[in-house]
């Protein structure tokens, strides 16, 4: 490397070493500071700082319930989520098409003279705006018709736990998407989570760590926290295994999903 040819010069060496030691000191201070202030630091993966996700929202009752308990159990929230994502994806595509069109037309604008350019540009902008507005309205009505109606019905019905999405810690796109994916898992596991009467209501609690591949396949499970009762732990692990495969893991959270950041609590 070129850098090291300078190594023989004394000044360079001394400044480099000084800079190095200052940087090391900064690093050490940052780590120390981080520990004191409880900021997650990569080298010291502190397993005691576990964030719990709460994704249950209670809906206030405003009228007598229309749906019976049995009917509510049969409604699959994941269906609604999937359908919603579909509609959103469609909306995204349509938006992209429209903006593409607008861009294609704009390059022509610079070839005109100033006045005409302005007018043409403005015109184009207006047209572009209108188009996007309409598409938005279309998407909205699409969304309304299919999903909002269903969701609104559920919410108005009251007495249904509907999924919220909690933003945990950092508010980057990654964290919320991770939480969203994680929140979809209990609904898939719950139908298989069954206990015989002698294990119920005993206050047992266990937590199972899961490792999921990009296709949603369960790579492995690990008992993160035992309940103290082997059979209880076994039932929980069985429920997880039987409920796989899970939905495909989005690329940007694949790292966390495959290295076991997701833990399912039975019951919490």
């Amino acid at each position, binding site marked *: 490397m070129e850098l090291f040819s300078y*190594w023989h010069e004394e000044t360079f060496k001394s400044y480099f070493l000084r800079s190095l030691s200052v940087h090391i000191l900064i690093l050490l201070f940052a780590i120390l500071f*981080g520990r004191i202030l409880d900021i*997650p630091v990569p080298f010291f993966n502190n397993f005691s700082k*576990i964030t719990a*996700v709460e994704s249950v929202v209670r809906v206030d*009752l405003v009228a007598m319930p229309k749906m019976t308990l049995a009917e509510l159990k049969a409604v699959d929230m994941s269906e609604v989520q999937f359908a919603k994502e579909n509609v959103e994806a469609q909306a995204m595509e349509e938006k992209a098409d429209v903006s593409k069109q607008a861009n294609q037309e704009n390059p022509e604008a610079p070839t005109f003279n100033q006045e005409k350019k302005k007018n043409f540009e403005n015109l184009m902008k207006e047209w572009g705006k209108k188009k996007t507005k309409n598409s938005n309205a279309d998407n909205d009505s699409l969304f309304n018709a299919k999903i909002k109606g269903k969701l609104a019905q559920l919410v108005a019905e009251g007495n249904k736990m509907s999924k919220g999405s909690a933003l945990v810690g*950092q508010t*980057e796109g990654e*964290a919320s998407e991770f939480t969203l994916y994680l929140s979809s898992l209990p609904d898939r596991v719950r139908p298989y989570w069954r206990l015989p009467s002698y294990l119920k209501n005993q206050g047992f609690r266990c937590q199972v760590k899961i490792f999921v591949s990009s296709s949603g396949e369960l790579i492995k499970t690990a008992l993160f926290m035992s309940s103290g009762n082997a059979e209880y732990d076994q039932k929980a692990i069985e429920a997880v295994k039987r409920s796989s495969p899970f939905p495909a893991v989005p690329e940007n959270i694949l790292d966390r999903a495959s290295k076991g950041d997701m833990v399912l609590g039975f019951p919490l």
Partner: protein
Amino acid sequence: MKIISSLILVLFCHQLFAQAGTTVIAVGEAELESEKILIEEPFFDGAVSPHFKAGAQEVISILRNDFSFYKKKFYSISPITLASSLSTTPDFEVLNKKAIKYYLKSEVVASSGTPNLYVAFYDVSSKHKIFEGPLALTLSQMRENAHILADSLYYSIFKKHSIFIHKVIFVSDRTSIANNKKKEAYIMDFDGKGVRQLTKHGGTVISPDISYDSSHLIYSMIPEGKRARNVDLYLMDLKSFEYKIVSSRKGINSGAVFLPDGQHVLLTLSYTGNAEIYKLELGSGKLTQITHHFAADVDPALNKDGTLMTFLSDRPGKANIYTLDPRGVGVEKDIKRISFVGLFNATPRFSPDGKEIVFSSWLDNRFDIFRINSDGSGLSRLTKDFGSNEDPSYSPDGEFIVFSSQRILSSKSAIQDIYIMDKDGEILGPLTHNFGNCTTPRWTK
């Protein structure tokens, strides 16, 4: 040196506060897994006479039927092995392979008098015999003994009693002749069998209740005849069937429910011009007023130990459900409003532990049954598209609700029957059939 320096450079490039952290999400409480139970055919040792054989087989089929009510806890499977004597220990390996959790064997030994059916009940996974005992095959008490046995088996597993030994009282108009409407009180086993008539007044019996020791029945009755009729309160001794009027005040004397001591009842009286709930001492006739409000307060119901009362009150403008502690003196102790929605709420009844209230409410041109927690939270609907459903009543173990359901047969006729469902609204089936219009069911306690 080069390697060290390059490593150090890589170090500094690394994001200091990268994302990390295990995240836990709650799956929630588990559903109950139902266990496989195998009740084998009885083994006959020696020459057992045919009618005792039939009796033994009937006991076994009653056991199977009883356990089938607890659908979420058990499912019964057909016998897979030949009946064998009790002296042979069960093959636990085979049973385990089939995932059978509970196993019952029985045997009748021929004898000169009434033989006994000996049963042995096993917990397969622990290989323990958790119950054994004889059951006398006295034909006249067959059903009763079988239910007692079923309850003992249930108790050996769950350490609490089931509904098998309980009965349901109700009112039916099957003794009516043409336009002459008569309603009498009846009692039947929890499974709808063994119906017996209790009252024979020829009038209209309403809102019966049975005492905690099942020794007395309290009910209101409108006597037959066209003269001015009062709704009087009657008390009947269920051994002698002797009855007497315990309250005949002007207006209504109805909706009486027993307190655990058997000496007091809570009921609605309107002799002051306003319907209020009172505590009546059956022996002396002494009255203590429980509700104190100018609006109508009716239809009391109690939790198992008599410490909480729920009732219907008009005080907010339309009929809504309230609870209070009936032991208050001169004041309405701990009064609390429970329902805030519903066009017309009726017949609120407590679960035995007092944690839930089941009631009927008018919705979509009929009544349906709803359940709410005693703190007012968790309102849920239990019945829908099943006729008009009223008068719900919780079983003593809190797992089942009986209610009356009206089906429209034609523009002029409808029929009401008593149905049983589990506490989450899964209807098991009717208890009465072809028995007139059956209403206001209540469990024995």
